[in-house]
Structures are given as structure tokens and as C-alpha cells.
């Protein structure tokens, strides 16, 4: 199953704490940092959206071509951002919840 995904944890002060690429990322020079760029651009949308709702899981906040950005915001405004294809939508919420629990234990 060739699916690409990029997972980034961004702290409250917009500093990336953790980054992981899954799947076949394109090796071409100009597309090397494409995923990071898309996630970075989505940060603004997340900022506004985070204040409108009580919930932590913000579903898909942004689209780019056929890639979707899903975001989960914790109580301390740490953002878990996942860039993935539109196919693999289910299970993302439980993935975020697991990461959240591990994050709390580690911090």
C-alpha cells in the first residue's frame, strides 16, 4: 500500500518538536520539503480554528491536491499535524488519541 504521510508535532510557540515521514516521499530536489511546507502553511488555519471549538480533534483543516491535513490540538496548544492521502481517513482520530496519551506520559 503506497501511501505517503507526514506527521509533525508543533509546540505552542510554533516550534516543531517531532517529525516523521511515512511511505515513499518523492526524491526530487524541489519536492523534498514539500510536505513540511504544506503543514507549515496550514498552521494559520489551525490557529483560527482552534479558538472556535472546544474539541481537540479538528479533522481535516486544509487540502492540497489530493493530500489532506488533519490536526489534533491538545490542552496546552501543542498541535499534532498529519498530512495524508484522502483515502486513509479512518483511524486517524484514534491514532491522535494514542499519540496524545504517550505525549502526556513523556512530558
Amino acid at each position, binding site marked *: 500500500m503506497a501511501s505517503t504521510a507526514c506527521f509533525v508535532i508543533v509546540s505552542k510557540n510554533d516550534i516543531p518538536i517531532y517529525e516523521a515521514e511515512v511511505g515513499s516521499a518523492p526524491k526530487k530536489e524541489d519536492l523534498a520539503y514539500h510536505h513540511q511546507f504544506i503543514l507549515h502553511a496550514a498552521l494559520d488555519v489551525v490557529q483560527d480554528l482552534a479558538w472556535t471549538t472546544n*474539541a481537540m480533534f479538528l479533522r481535516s483543516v486544509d487540502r492540497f491536491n489530493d493530500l489532506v491535513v488533519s490536526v489534533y490540538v491538545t*490542552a496546552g496548544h501543542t498541535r499534532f499535524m498529519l498530512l495524508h492521502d484522502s483515502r486513509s481517513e479512518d483511524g486517524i482520530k484514534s491514532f491522535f488519541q494514542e499519540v496524545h*496519551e*504517550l505525549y502526556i*506520559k*513523556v512530558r
Partner: protein
Amino acid sequence: MISVGKTKQYANVLDKLLSRGRQEVSLSAFAFLFSEVVQYNQTQVDNIADLERRLEDAGYAVGARVLELLCHREKGNRRETQLLGILSFIHSTVWKVLFGKVADSLEKGTEHEDEYMISEKELLVNRFISVPKDMGAFNCGAFVAGIVRGVLDNAGFPAVVTAHFVPIEGQQRPRTTILIKFAEELLNSKGIYN
């Protein structure tokens, strides 16, 4: 408040369960630890303001973690987006978990729009501490003020938090008040403040 806990020894912090339920720590152990913290910091600084700042910074780290943990445990993963919401969260939930009871009162300041006060008849950290006369207005409640500041700051409501003694007639020891003054930008931002 002394409890005997039979805890399994987990090799890895990641394996520990997150919601362990009510776990009580011995009050004397905490008082001892806190007094050592204060004494250690006293040797590191020259003046009272720095001592208060260090205690506050220690509290800030606690507050940041407490916010994450309690939102996960107690509130089922719902964040606070309203000012009053986060204040009542601190006043009841945080206080209950840290000190075993809700805070005595939460008031809005009358002179300034952006001031709130949480008062407590006898703050736990101050219970076993007596401040010598030559240290003036030093208050070990600065630690608790730091906790509150940590919670507010990480939830997205920057504020300056200080602890003050308020003498009450008819009571030997003064009441402790935590004064919360929110930052300028919150006054102007849309919908969050009100």
C-alpha cells in the same frame, strides 16, 4: 493524607497507566520537600524578588503539565476556549487535584477589567512556613502563583500572576490571594475575553 500505595514497578514511564485515580501523597513529605526547595533557592539568590521569581518558575513547570494531564483525565479531552471557563477550571478542578478542595473564592477585580482574584484562607504551601520580619512581603504562595501562570499561559491566556497576603480581622493568619492580571492582547482579541 498518608496512604500506603501498592504500585507495580513499571520499567518504562510509557507503560504506566495515565489515569491512576486518586493518589494521595503524604503531606509531611510534601512540606519537607517544599521547605528544602525554598531553602535551596535562598542560597542561590541575593534578594527576595529573585527568590519569588525562582519559586514562580518552578510552579510554571508544574502548571504546564497539570493543564495537559487534567484536561485529559478530568475533562475528557475538551479544551478551554473561554476566559471564564479556564478560570473556573483552575478554581475547582486544578485546586481539587492539587490541594484536595476547591479554592475558597474566585472574584473579579473592581478597579481593572482584566484582574481576577482567587483567595484561600490557608494556602497549603504556606501552612508550615513562617516568614521572618526582615523579608517583608515575601510570600511562598509565589509557587502556587507560578502554577496558575503555567496553566493560563499554556492554555493561551497570558497573564501576570502574583500572590499577596490580605489581613483579615478576627483571624490570626492573613488570607492569601492570588492576583491574576491578564495581558493587554486578551482585552482586544475577538470573543475570547468576554
